C-alpha cells in the first residue's frame, strides 16, 4: 500500500465514510452486464449450491442444488447455468467489425491485405468477489472435459449437451480475469477497492457488505458501525443480517437452516414421495434465495457506484483487448478446437506470463496518465513532476547538416524528482510523445530547465503546439510512457525440445 492510499484510509477513518482513490473509473462497465452471485457447497471442491444470475436486475434467475452431494443434480444445475449464460455469451459473436491489416507473405514476400473480424462488443460478467471468479474457474475445470451423449463414446456418465461448452467459456473467462486491466469477468470487491479507500484494512475490504457500508453508509451512521453490522450483526434466529457474498455460506446458516432442510429433502426423496420432494426442494430454494437476494442488490449497488464515475480515457482501448480475447475464443470454439488443457505447455505459459507482465505495466502507465491521483503517487515517489512553465527559450542543435529545434523549457515545481542534469524525462499529457533532458536545475527555487529532444516535427521550427507555452501546466515522468514489447518467442520449430519444441 502506498503512502497516499494510507493517507486516504486515514481520512476515511476521520470522515467515517470511504474516500476516493481515483478520480475516474479505471475499468470498463458494460451497458448490459451479466451479474452472478454463486454459492459453493461447503467441503466439496467446485460443487455448486446455488446461484442468482441474470442481466435484468429486477428479475434475477435462481438456480439451486437441493442435495450438493448428488452429482446428477450438480450437472443438472450446470446444464441450467449453461442455458442461462451461453445465450448471453454467444449474443456478442454476431456483430463484428472488419479490420484490415497489411501482411507480408513469408514465402513470396508479396504484400497482401488480411481482413480480420473483431466483435463490436464483448460480454461482461460481474461477480461479488475474487472467490466467485475462482469458483467459476473450478466449474470450468470440472466440466470442460466431460463427454456428452452426442460424443461417439459417451462413457458411463454422459453430461448434458452444452455443459462442456459452458466449461470452456468459464475457463476462458476466469483465465482472462488474471490479465491486469481486463474487465470481462470483474470481481466487484477488488474493483470497488481500487476506486475507494475505506477506513479499514484491505483484508476487511474483501467483504462486499462491509465495503459498501463504508462507501455508502446508511443515513446517519458512520462507516465503521455500518461495516461492523454488515460483518457481524445477527438476528434473533442467530443468522447474519447481511449474508456473506459467497462463495462460502455462513456456517451458522449451514448448520441451523440448510442442513435440516437438506435432511428433510433427502427423507422425502428416499420415501419416493415426488410432490413432497418438490415441496422440500422449494423450501431449500426459498432459504437460498433469502441469503442471495441481499447480495444481488449489493452487486447492483456496486455497479451503480462504478457507473457514477466518469470512465478513464484509456478504458476503451483496454476493453478492445477484451473484445479481441472474446473474438479469439469464439473462433477457437467455432473451429472445433479441443478444450483448454489441464496444464499449459511451456510456450503458452511463457506467452501468458509475458502478456500479464506487459498488461500490468500498461495498466500502471495508463492509470497514471488518466488519473491525477495515480500520477500523484509517482510525483510523491520522485518519479514524476508537474508544474507551470515559467519560461520558454528557443534553441537549436546545429551539430548536424540542418539545425534542429531544441527549445529550453523552464518549469516551476514543488515536486522533488530524483533527477540529475542529463537525465531523461517524458512528457505526460502532451500532444505527442516527447522526450526531454534536464539541462540544469535550481533546487532552492524549484526551477527545472528541460531541453526538449523530440516530438516537434522535422522542420527547423517546431510544429505549432508541440512546445509548451509560458503559463501552461505540464507534467513529466522519469519512466517511459509506453510498455516495452518483449522479444518475440521463437517459432514452434525453433523452440528447444525442453520447452515443448520438436524432438531432436
Amino acid at each position, binding site marked *: *500500500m502506498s*503512502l*497516499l492510499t*494510507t*493517507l*486516504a*484510509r*486515514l*481520512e476515511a*477513518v*476521520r470522515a467515517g465514510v470511504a474516500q*476516493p482513490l481515483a*478520480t475516474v473509473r479505471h475499468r470498463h462497465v458494460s451497458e448490459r452486464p451479466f451479474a452472478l452471485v454463486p454459492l459453493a*457447497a*461447503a*467441503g*466439496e*471442491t*467446485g460443487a455448486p449450491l446455488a446461484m442468482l444470475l441474470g442481466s435484468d436486475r429486477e428479475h434475477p434467475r435462481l438456480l439451486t442444488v437441493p442435495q*450438493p452431494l448428488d452429482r446428477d443434480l450438480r450437472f443438472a444445475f450446470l446444464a441450467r447455468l449453461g442455458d442461462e449464460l451461453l445465450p448471453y455469451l454467444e449474443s456478442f459473436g454476431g456483430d463484428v467489425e472488419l479490420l484490415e491489416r497489411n501482411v507480408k507473405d513469408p514465402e513470396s514476400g508479396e504484400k497482401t491485405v488480411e481482413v480480420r473480424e473483431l466483435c463490436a462488443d464483448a460480454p461482461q460478467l460481474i461477480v461479488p468477489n475474487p472467490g466467485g471468479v475462482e469458483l467459476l474457474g*473450478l466449474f470450468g*475445470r*470440472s466440466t470442460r472435459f466431460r463427454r456428452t451423449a452426442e460424443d461417439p463414446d459417451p462413457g458411463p456418465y454422459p453430461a448434458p449437451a452444452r455443459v462442456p461448452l459452458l466449461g470452456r467459456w468459464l475457463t476462458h473467462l476466469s483465465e482472462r480475469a488474471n490479465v491486469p486491466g481486463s474487465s470481462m469477468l470483474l470481481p466487484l470487491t477488488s474493483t470497488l477497492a481500487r476506486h475507494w479507500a475505506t*477506513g*479499514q*484494512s*484491505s*483484508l*476487511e475490504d474483501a467483504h462486499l457488505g462491509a465495503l459498501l457500508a463504508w462507501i455508502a453508509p446508511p443515513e446517519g451512521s458512520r462507516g*465503521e458501525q455500518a461495516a*461492523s453490522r454488515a*460483518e*457481524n450483526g445477527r438476528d434473533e434466529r442467530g443468522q*447474519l443480517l447481511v449474508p456473506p457474498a459467497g462463495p*462460502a*455460506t*455462513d*456456517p*451458522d446458516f*449451514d*448448520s441451523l437452516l440448510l*442442513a435440516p432442510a437438506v435432511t428433510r429433502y433427502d427423507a422425502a426423496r428416499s420415501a419416493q414421495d415426488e410432490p413432497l420432494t418438490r415441496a422440500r426442494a422449494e423450501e431449500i430454494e426459498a432459504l437460498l434465495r433469502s441469503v442471495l437476494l441481499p447480495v444481488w442488490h449489493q452487486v447492483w449497488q456496486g455497479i451503480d457506484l462504478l457507473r457514477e464515475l466518469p470512465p478513464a480515457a484509456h478504458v476503451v482501448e483496454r476493453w478492445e483487448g477484451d473484445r479481441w480475447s472474446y473474438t479469439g475464443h469464439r473462433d477457437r470454439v467455432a473451429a472445433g478446437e479441443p478444450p483448454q488443457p*489441464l*496444464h499449459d505447455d511451456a510456450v503458452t505459459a511463457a506467452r501468458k506470463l509475458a502478456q500479464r507482465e506487459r498488461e500490468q505495466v500498461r495498466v500502471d502507465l495508463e492509470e497514471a496518465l488518466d*488519473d*491525477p*491521483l495515480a*500520477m*500523484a503517487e509517482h*510525483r*510523491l515517489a520522485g518519479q514524476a513532476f508537474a508544474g507551470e512553465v515559467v519560461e520558454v527559450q528557443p534553441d537549436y542543435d546545429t551539430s548536424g547538416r540542418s539545425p534542429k529545434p531544441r527549445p529550453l523549457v523552464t518549469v516551476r515545481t*514543488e515536486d522533488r524528482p530524483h533527477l540529475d542534469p542529463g537525465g531523461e524525462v517524458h512528457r505526460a499529457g502532451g500532444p505527442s510523445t516527447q522526450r526531454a533532458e534536464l539541462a540544469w536545475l535550481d533546487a532552492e527555487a524549484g526551477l527545472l530547465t528541460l531541453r526538449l529532444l523530440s516530438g516537434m516535427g522535422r522542420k527547423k521550427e517546431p510544429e505549432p503546439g508541440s512546445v509548451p507555452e509560458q503559463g501552461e501546466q505540464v507534467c513529466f515522468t522519469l519512466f517511459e510512457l509506453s510498455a516495452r514489447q518483449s522479444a518475440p518467442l521463437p517459432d514452434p520449430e525453433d523452440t528447444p525440445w525442453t520447452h515443448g519444441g520438436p524432438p531432436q
Partner: protein
Amino acid sequence: MNHSTHPRVDQPLTPLEARLAALRGDAAARSMDARALAALAANPGCDRRAVLDAAGVDKASLAARLGSPAAFGQSPFAITRGLVFERRLRADRCAELVALLRSELLPEASAQTPVEVPDLLPSEGPAVRAARTRVALSEAAAAASAGRAWTLLDRPLLRLDVAGSSVSLEPDAIVVGPDGRWTVVEIKSFPILDGSADPTKVGAAARQAAVYVLALRATASALDAAAPSAVRPAGASGAGKPGSPYVEPEGLAGAVRTTGLLVCPRDFSNVAVAAPLDLRKQLAVTRRQLVRMTRIETLLAALPETARLDEAPEAVDALAHAYTPDCLAACELSFHCRTQARAAGAVETLGRGVRGELGSLTTVEAALAATGEGEALARAARLREEALAR
C-alpha cells in the same frame, strides 16, 4: 471443581498450572493444539492470546460474553466431508493410508517390508498417551535400525514446552521409515487439484506440521537423553553454524525429516493423494517465534491474583493485545481486540504494513495531525488535495 478434559492427572498441578486453572475458572479447558500454536507463532507479541491459550480458555465463548462474537466455525457439511475422508484413510488399521505411504515414502527395494501399526491407546489420558507414544517411537526406531519393519504411528501424542507451560500435540500420523527417518504426516480435506492446492491452506498446514516436527525433535532428544547407550554419531558435533536457523540437530532428533507429507483428496474425488511439504522455512520461523515468546509467568503479572475469566471476562483487557487485521482469520477474540484498537486509534487497524510506513506516527490522530504545514505528511496531503481538486 475442575472440569478439565485431562481427568487422569498423574502429577499434582505446578503453581503455574494452578494459577492458569484458576484464571479459567469453572469453564472446561481447551487443549492447545498445533493450530493455536501456529497462530501464536504468527503473532508472538500478543500477550493476550499467549495467556488465554496457555490457560486453555475457550476464546469463542469468552468473545461472546464480551459482546463481540467472531464468525468462526465450520459448516457441518465441511466437517462431515473431512471426517469421512479421514475415516476412510484410517479404516481397517489405516490400510489405505499405509498403501499410500508405501508408494510415496518407501524406496522400491523396501516396498515389501512389513508395516507395524502399534496401538497408541487413543482413549487414555494425555499423560498415558504421551508415554505410550514415546515407547512406540523408541521401539519403532529399534525396529527400523534392525531393518525389520517400518512403523506408522496413528494419532500419537507429543509434548512440547511453550513459554514455560507444557502443551499436548496430536499429529495425524508419524511414519518411521526403514531408513530410520521420521516423517510427519498431515491429513487435510482440501483438494490437490491438478497437482496444486490453495497456497493459504497449504501454508497453514505447513505451519502446523512444523510445530509437530519441533515437538517430535523434543521427544527424540528426551529419548536420547534417557538412553545414553543408544547409537549416537560420536564426535560429530555439527556446531559449524550454531546461529543458523537451518542447522539440523544431532542424535535421534536429527532423524526427523524436515519434509512433511501432506495427504489430501485428489481433484474432485475422495481418493487420497500425497505430496511432500518442505517445512524448513516454517520450522525456522516457528522455532524463533516460540523462543521469543515471553514466559507466561511474566505475562500473568499484569493480572490480579484473583482474576477469573468465567466470572469477569473483562479482566482480559489487562493483558496487552497486538491486533493486526490478520488476526481476523486466526483468532476468535479478534473483533474484541479490533474494537479496542480502533478506540485507541491505532494505525495497525488499517493493515499490518501501515505501521511500518508511518514510523513514529502510531495513532490515526497523530498521522492526520502530521498532514499540517511543515509536518511529515504535508507533501503527500497537498498532492492528494491538488489531484482531487482537478
